[in-house]
C-alpha cells in the first residue's frame, strides 16, 4: 500500500509535560488507522500534531518531523493553515458552528476560504452531506440551525463539514465517544465507507471499535508507540506483552 504520511521522532509537550516521546509511525493511504491506548497516553495529542492543531493551545511545543506529500509539515516554509485544509479533523464533541445553518456549516470551509460560486457550493454541500450519510435526513431543512440536530447528526454534520474542503486525510479524535450506540454504529459505517476516498486516522478508547473498522491499529502507552500492525494481527497475537495486557483488560 502507498504511504500517505510518516512521522519521525515526533515529540510534543504541553507546558512542562512531555506527552509524546518520539513517535515513528507510518500511515497508509486509503486505509483506516486506529489509535488505541489508555487515557493520557498521548493518542489525542498525536493526531493533533499531524495537522498542527496541537500548537493552537498556548504553552505547547512540538519537535520532530511529519512527512506528508514529500514535505515536512513542520517546515518553516509551511503555513499550518494550508496543512489543515489538506488534513481535516473531527473532534470528540460535535462542534457545529452555532451561528450557522446546516448548509452554511458544511459550506463554511469553502466560503471562509474564498469560494463564493453558488453552483460549486451547492454541489459540494450536497455531495458532502451524502458522503456523511446525512443528506436524506436534512435535505428539507438546510436552513435550520446546525444546533437543531441530534448529537449523532451533529457529528455527521461535522464530518460533512470536514469533507467539503476535500482533504486527503481526516483525523478523528474519539468521534463517537459522546454518542449513543446507534449513532456510534452510524459513524462507524460511515468511516468504513469513506476510506475509499480519504485516509482516516481515528483515535478511540473503544477496542471493539478499532477491531471492527480499522485496517491497522497502533497502541500508545505513556507517550510511546508500543506496537503498530494489521488490526487482526494485533488483536490475535500481539508482539508486545504490554499490548496483550491492555487488550485483555489487565490495565487501562
Amino acid at each position, binding site marked *: 500500500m502507498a504511504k500517505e504520511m510518516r512521522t519521525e521522532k515526533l515529540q510534543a509537550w504541553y507546558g512542562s509535560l512531555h506527552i509524546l516521546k518520539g513517535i515513528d509511525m507510518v500511515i497508509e493511504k486509503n486505509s483506516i488507522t486506529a489509535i488505541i491506548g489508555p487515557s493520557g497516553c498521548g493518542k489525542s495529542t498525536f493526531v493533533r500534531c499531524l*495537522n498542527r492543531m496541537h500548537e493552537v493551545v498556548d504553552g505547547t511545543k512540538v519537535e520532530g518531523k511529519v512527512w506528508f506529500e514529500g514535505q515536512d509539515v513542520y517546515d518553516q516554509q509551511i503555513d499550518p493553515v494550508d496543512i*489543515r485544509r489538506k488534513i481535516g479533523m473531527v473532534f470528540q464533541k460535535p462542534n457545529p*458552528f*452555532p451561528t450557522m445553518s446546516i448548509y452554511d456549516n458544511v459550506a*463554511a470551509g469553502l466560503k471562509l476560504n474564498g469560494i463564493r460560486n453558488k453552483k460549486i457550493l451547492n454541489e459540494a454541500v450536497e455531495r458532502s452531506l451524502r458522503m456523511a450519510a446525512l443528506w436524506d435526513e436534512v435535505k428539507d431543512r438546510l436552513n435550520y440551525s446546525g444546533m437543531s440536530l441530534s448529537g449523532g447528526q451533529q457529528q455527521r454534520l*461535522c464530518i460533512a463539514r470536514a469533507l467539503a474542503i476535500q482533504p486527503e486525510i481526516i483525523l478523528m479524535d474519539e468521534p463517537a465517544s459522546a454518542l449513543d450506540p446507534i449513532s456510534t454504529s452510524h459513524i462507524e459505517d460511515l468511516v468504513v465507507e469513506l476510506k475509499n476516498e480519504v485516509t482516516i486516522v481515528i483515535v478511540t478508547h473503544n477496542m471493539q471499535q478499532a477491531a471492527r473498522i480499522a485496517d491497522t491499529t497502533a497502541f500508545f502507552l505513556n507517550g510511546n508507540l508500543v506496537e503498530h500492525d494489521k488490526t487482526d494481527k494485533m488483536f490475535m497475537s500481539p508482539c508486545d506483552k504490554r499490548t496483550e495486557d491492555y487488550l485483555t483488560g489487565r490495565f487501562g
Partner: protein
Amino acid sequence: MTDIILKSNLGRRKFVNRLMLGIVILLTALAIIPLICIVGYIIYKGLPAINWDFFTKLPVPVGESGGGIGNSIIGTLILVAIASVVGIPIGILSAVYLSEYKPAGAFSSCVRFVVDVMLGIPSIVLGIFAYLTFVKPFGHFSAISGGLALALLMIPIVGRSTEEILKLVPNTIREGAYALGVPKWKTILRIVLPYATKGIVTGVMLGVARVAGETAPLLLTAFGNHFWSKNINEPIASLPAQIFEYAKSPFDDWIQKAWGAALVLIVLVLTLNVIARVITRGRFKNAS
C-alpha cells in the same frame, strides 16, 4: 462546626435565623424603594412638561413661555455618536487582542489593570484631561471634545464587557474553524465575533446608556448652547447639562423643563438598559 449544634439551643438559633431574614428583606426593600421613587417622581413631575414643542423647539429666555429642549436632545445624540465611533472600536478591538491573541502574560495583565483603573477614574477627571487635550490647545469648547471625553468613559466599559463575553465563546468552535484551514483572523471575524454578537451589543448598549447620562465631563468640554448645533467644532447642548442649568435656576418654568428633560433622559437610559439585559437573557437559548 459541631460546636454550633452542641452548644446552642435550637429555638434561639431558629429565631436568630428568622430575625436576620427579616432584616435582610428590610434592607433589600430599602435599596429598591429609591428606584421606584425616582422613576415615579420623575414621571409625575416631568409629564406635564412634555409636549410636541418640548422636543422640537429651542430654549427660550426667562419670561417667555413655550420653547423646548430639542437642541439638547440632538446634542446628546451627537455627543453619544462621537463617543461611540471612537470608543466602541477601541474597546472591542483591544478586547479581541486580550482574549484571542494574548490571554495570559504581563502586557495583557497590564492592559486589564489599566481598564480597571479607567473604570474607576471619576468622570470629572476625564473631563479635565479632555479639556487639557482637546479644548485648551484650540481655545474653545466643542462637541468633539465632549464626545472624546465620553469615549474615554466608554472604552473601559465596552472593553471589559467584550472580553468577558469572548471568554465565554467555547474553544471547540475556534478549533473547528482552524481544522478547516481557516486563518485565525478570519476565525475571529466570522466565527468568534458573530457568536458573541449579542453579548457585545449588550456591553455597547450599557456603555452608551452610561455616557448618555454623563454630565460632569461635558461641563468642561461641550459646555452647552441654546441653538441648533451646526458644527461639531463648536460648543453643543446636551440633556444632562441642560438639566443641570435649569435645575440651578430660580425660575419655575425652567425647573419644570428640567423635570421634562429628566424624564426624556431616564426613558432613554432605562430603555437601553432593559433592552440590553433582555438580549443577554436570551443569549444561551440558541447557542448551547
